[in-house]
């Protein structure tokens, strides 16, 4: 297994496989960049601060028992802040060293735009899923 073209990524949101409605996906493992530079070194020094892991997905919107039905109930507000599992794999197949999986069991949905676009555009929803825990990579 070597280089590959993204065309069969697996994306599951709250236990629902939405892969065939995903136009793009990004797994972002990110920490705050805390500057701990001091006098005399001449260069910036960095430490990882708080983590800010998230998934970013562009869905082809589907109001027929698919994307919108899956995401609308998950939108958080002051009274209800559901967290849910989200799984992304490179390929829709068994997890292996050549098919790693990234998972968060504490994903939250803060912003959702179910309808957005210009006349004539394909209806899409660009969604960011912040994680309240570090995204975990597994290979088995």
């Amino acid at each position, binding site marked *: 297994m070597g280089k590959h073209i993204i*065309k069969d*990524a697996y994306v599951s949101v709250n236990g629902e496989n939405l892969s065939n409605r*995903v*136009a793009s*996906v990004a797994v972002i493992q990110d920490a705050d960049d805390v500057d701990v530079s001091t006098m005399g070194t001449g260069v910036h020094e960095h430490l990882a601060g708080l983590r800010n892991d998230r998934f970013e997905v562009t869905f*082809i919107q589907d109001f027929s028992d698919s994307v919108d039905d899956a995401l609308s109930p998950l939108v958080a507000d002051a009274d209800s802040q559901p967290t849910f599992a989200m799984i992304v794999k490179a390929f829709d197949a068994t997890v292996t060293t050549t098919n790693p999986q990234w998972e968060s069991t504490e994903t939250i949905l803060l912003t959702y735009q179910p309808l957005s676009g210009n006349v004539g555009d*394909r209806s899409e929803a660009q969604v960011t899923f912040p994680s309240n825990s570090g995204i975990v990579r597994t290979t088995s």
Partner: protein
Amino acid sequence: MFDLEQVRAGLKANLDALGAAVGCQVVPYMLGNPTPPTIEIMGPDEILYDIAGSRGGDQNIVIIRAFVGITVDQAAQITLDKMLQSSGSLSVKEAVEKIDSNDGGRVTLGGIVDDLRVTRSAGYQVYPQPAGQDDVLGSSWFVEILSDS
């Protein structure tokens, strides 16, 4: 699954009433020597595979072509003008985009595609004919179709 044979039949069905009004035949495939007036479903201009992962969908651009009459015929030009309009009883765009589904106002050709839109026309086109025959006036319309794979 996107089935081009069914799409051709569906587009033809949406155009049949317009064809009857113009007095022309509507055919689902290209003719070797079409006699105007004729509307034919020419076929795909472009296919974008994998607009969604896991073979979740494709986008097809299908061409509809009409041969209206000989170029010097004013009546043919009048007819073509009306066919090129975005709406009206002879509008190709309006005929093709006839909503046949109560499911959100999409144009599904009887449930065989997710949605479609006539995005543009090539405008006045002159189709050369064999020596001794008058050139034919017509146009092409490009239909963007979204469907499952």
